[in-house]
């Protein structure tokens, strides 16, 4: 079939302008395919990083114990112990599990935390806050607190607190000043503001306070254990699988971020579907373009096909000549389009350096290999009809033309 490939190549090079036009058409289709892949992929990554980038990808929370029912020997209920609202459930053996969770592949960071509610008081002003106690040194493990600091230091030590900018403004606080924090357990601590952060998330900046894990133990009367473990992954899309693995390893109720994020996932899926449609249309355009050009070529070369058949070329040989032309056009157009797509995406900032106001293109999600492969397959499929038509050419009629 090497010889059929030579004939196919010669046919393509014989009419350079027509072939160049055809390859350009295919390349434009591939370019659109790659551009859409990079845009849809980049957009999805951008939305995900903006919505779940700063939250825990997998969370393990202590299960609140069921209230005890005390039953008398006669079968009558004597006492019902109500679920304590102020008490925080405890992962008592967290220290045992942490090293194990950290060895799970794909886990980037693990942050044991004690969380609870409280009131911040400064003078006559009082604000309700959500308090998170984290281990010193792991302040930025989940939320990039260090990256969001606007004033002061992210370091959390004994007697120190870090607040959101809105909350600090509400209380007219600046770094170095003291304030009083009363926990939901009724414990009161006087703390020094060591830093102020701003994430751009109103809920976070206006009602969140970070303290050290030891401070939180005092505040929430939790001498041992933690109330939750937050886990950050290298790939947030692997959350479901990794959560299953952690569950299997530890028996703890590891919950991936995708639980409860159905609407976000639906929106991302709808966006991906739109991308698939656009890419499919680009491929269909390529297939129609290649098929019509090769059909025209088949008609124009009927006498030559007749001669080849008379000289002993079989139908399979003729089919291969035209299918090879389709494959070569697909390959040349695919590679050209992929190269153009890559070059066109180069000026866009990378995912990490994305600036608001520009398209969130992700050059790594161009699907270059897929685009080239699908284009070659599409072009081969497109050439089958013209090839079969060529193979059916009656040599007697064709030679007489």
């Amino acid at each position, binding site marked *: 079939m090497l010889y059929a490939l*030579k004939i196919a190549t010669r*046919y393509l090079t014989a009419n350079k302008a027509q072939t160049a036009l055809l390859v350009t058409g295919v390349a434009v289709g591939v370019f659109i395919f790659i551009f859409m892949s990079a845009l849809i992929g980049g957009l999805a990554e951008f939305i995900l990083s903006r919505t779940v980038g700063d939250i825990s990808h997998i969370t393990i929370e202590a299960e609140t114990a069921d209230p005890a029912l005390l039953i008398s020997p006669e079968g009558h209920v004597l006492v019902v112990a109500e679920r304590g609202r102020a008490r925080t459930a405890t992962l008592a053996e967290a220290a045992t599990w942490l090293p194990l969770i950290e060895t799970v592949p794909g886990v980037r960071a693990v942050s044991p935390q004690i969380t609870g509610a409280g009131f911040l008081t400064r003078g006559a002003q009082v604000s309700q806050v959500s308090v998170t106690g984290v281990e010193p040194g792991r302040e930025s493990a989940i939320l990039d607190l260090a990256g969001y600091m606007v004033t002061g230091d992210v370091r959390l030590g004994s007697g120190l607190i870090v607040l959101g900018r809105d909350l600090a403004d509400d209380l007219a606080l600046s770094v170095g000043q003291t304030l009083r924090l009363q926990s939901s357990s009724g414990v009161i601590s006087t703390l020094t503001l060591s830093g102020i952060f701003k994430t751009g998330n109103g809920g976070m900046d206006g009602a969140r306070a970070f303290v050290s894990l030891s401070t939180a133990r005092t505040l929430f009367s939790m001498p041992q254990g933690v109330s939750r473990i937050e886990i950050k992954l290298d790939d947030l899309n692997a959350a479901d699988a990794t959560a299953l693995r952690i569950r299997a390893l530890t028996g703890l109720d590891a919950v991936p971020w995708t639980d409860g994020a159905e609407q976000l996932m639906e929106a991302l899926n709808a966006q991906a579907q739109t991308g698939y449609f656009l890419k499919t249309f680009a491929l269909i355009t390529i297939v129609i373009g290649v098929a019509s050009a090769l059909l025209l070529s088949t008609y124009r070369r009927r006498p*030559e096909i007749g001669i080849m*058949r*008379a000289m*002993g*070329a079989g139908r399979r040989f003729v089919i291969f000549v035209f299918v090879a032309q389709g494959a070569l056009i697909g390959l040349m157009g695919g590679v050209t389009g992929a190269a153009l797509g890559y070059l066109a995406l180069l000026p866009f900032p990378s995912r990490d350096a994305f600036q608001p106001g520009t398209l969130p293109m992700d050059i790594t999600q161009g699907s270059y290999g897929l685009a080239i492969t699908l284009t070659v397959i599409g072009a081969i499929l497109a050439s089958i009809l013209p090839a079969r038509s060529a193979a059916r050419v009656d040599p007697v009629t064709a030679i007489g033309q």
Partner: protein
Amino acid sequence: MSTLLEVRELFKTYGTGEATTRVLRGLSLCLEAGELAALLGPSGSGKSTLLTILGTLMKPTSGSYVMLGQDMIAADDKALTDFRNAHIGFVFQFHNLLPDFTALENVVFPTAVREGRETPAARARGRELLSRMGLADRIEFPSANLSGGQKQRVAVARALMNSPELVLADEPTGNLDRDSANQVMDLIGQINREEGTTFLISTHDEKIAGFCRRQIVVGDGIMTG
């Protein structure tokens, strides 16, 4: 001499109903190996149809055709294609070269299509044939740039490439001037004498027929002489 091919009671009908045209009406013919024969007859007498059937490019409506001991009527398309490639060469009135290929590439085509590539041996034979046709200085010329006579000599070289037992030529000089026609016929005569290749040449030209040792006359779909 041994029998190369034999056809008996060949009928060929085109169309159906009132549009039916009976081109061959029971034609029988025997060609011996090494013959140089002219096929004469007026237009519409069935010469081209007979050549097409003998070239295995078309099957008759009825009749028998045996060449080199093989039944050409019963053979399928694949078998006929392979047989044609190995044993039959064609020279057409309008040379019918592949325009995007050089003279040498056109000549080696029948061997290359069988071997799957242009072997050095095939290229050597192609060069030898073109030299023999007086085209040594045109070997790498694009066929589209050759003159009519040169193209027809390339076509003769191509027909001889696989050393076929039979070469069918349909008006091979019909489109050439007298000098080119004589040159082509001289070459055909020389190859016939030296290699024993059988030629059946369809022509209207009595002078061309005069080159041949046998004249077969077809009229109204049967052999008349």
